[in-house]
């Protein structure tokens, strides 16, 4: 059998992709692994699946760094916005509320709140026009993705039980349009969890 051309697992790769995603039963996983050790094609395709998954779940390094270490220009712009907003507030009556989006988004600002309760992170957010789905993402402090959940609702719950306690975690919600493009994102926020 020429592994490069004939392989049932690689020709119909449903199980291979599910294995990479951790969505197979133990017996399916064992059978596939036994095959994997002898099949070079499956090894290549599995690495490909893992790399695509990892890359698609990875937040932009640049955006995380930008969030953690905002540039001088960003700080200056933020300070200017605060000054202008403060000035406007002085001019307007106290009954008026000025909503200043943290990040500009033509589809609207995604504002999300979260609550840690019963070993889960419960997140709620506002609907964004044009969004088909929302992704709730959980990261470690160095930006490595821990969990991700995609939903069309405006609420989600992520279990934290299997994650190491004490380590700081960060979360955010992203709105995704029908083309898979992120059209709005909540800021990264830290979850403080007791040790």
């Amino acid at each position, binding site marked *: 059998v020429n*592994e490069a051309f004939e392989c049932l697992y690689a020709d*119909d*790769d*449903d199980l291979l*992709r*599910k294995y*990479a*995603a*951790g*969505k197979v039963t133990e017996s399916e*996983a064992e059978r596939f*692994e*036994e095959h*994997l*050790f*002898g099949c*070079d094609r499956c*090894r*290549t395709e*599995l*690495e*490909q*699946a*893992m*790399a*695509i*998954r*990892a*890359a*698609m*779940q*990875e937040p*932009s*390094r640049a955006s995380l760094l930008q969030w953690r270490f905002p540039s001088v220009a960003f700080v200056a712009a933020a300070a200017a916005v605060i000054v202008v907003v403060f000035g406007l507030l002085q001019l307007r009556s106290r009954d008026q509320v000025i909503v200043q989006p943290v990040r500009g988004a033509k589809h609207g600002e995604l504002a999300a709140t979260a609550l840690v309760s019963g070993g889960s992170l419960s997140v709620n957010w506002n609907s964004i026009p044009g969004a088909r789905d929302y992704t709730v993402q*959980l990261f470690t402090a160095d930006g*490595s*993705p*821990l*969990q*991700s959940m*995609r939903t069309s609702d405006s609420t989600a719950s992520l279990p934290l039980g*299997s*994650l*190491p*306690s004490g380590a700081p975690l960060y979360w955010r919600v992203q709105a995704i349009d029908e*083309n*898979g*493009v992120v059209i709005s994102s909540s800021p990264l926020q830290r979850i403080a969890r007791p*040790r």
Partner: protein
Amino acid sequence: LASRERINRLTASADRSADALATELTERFWLRLRVFAARRLRDRNVAEDVAQETIRRVLEALREKRVDNLDALPAFVFQTARNICLHHGRSAHRETGALRRFGSSQSFVTGEEADPLSALIDRNRREQVRGALEAMRPEDRELLRMLYVDALDTAEVAARLGIDSGALRVRKHRALQRLAGILGNVSGRSGTEGGV
């Protein structure tokens, strides 16, 4: 196949160059062993230890001619890795029991990964693939997301896109070719195992 032949030759040679054989075994089984162990133990560092220990034991077995049929080498490596993982699992279980007996309320698993296989992909590789994905057409990206992130069945993705499974496979193949093309243009050959 070439790797199998090289292992054959190295094992059969009189001097049995240890370094060359170890290199061959590592090249051939490193990713597989880490994947195998990471899925079971959910910790990339422990998975690396298991992979190293497996390579060491297999090397020892080859030197001592305990592997008669080299065609069965993959099965031998698989079984060796499984035994090491089982042993590790039992040790971890005993450790848990001891912690519980001492009334520790702390989590005993220190490095548990939510997505252990993705965690094996190093940061440079992720960034490289992510950059290439961002350069793709949105419809290609969405297709790959449904297939690899959501891990939907081929039939389900085909139904969502209103095409048959055969057409979907063609579309996927082309999307992966485009991804490989972008990756090739951006960085040449990837420095990690395998390659998209």
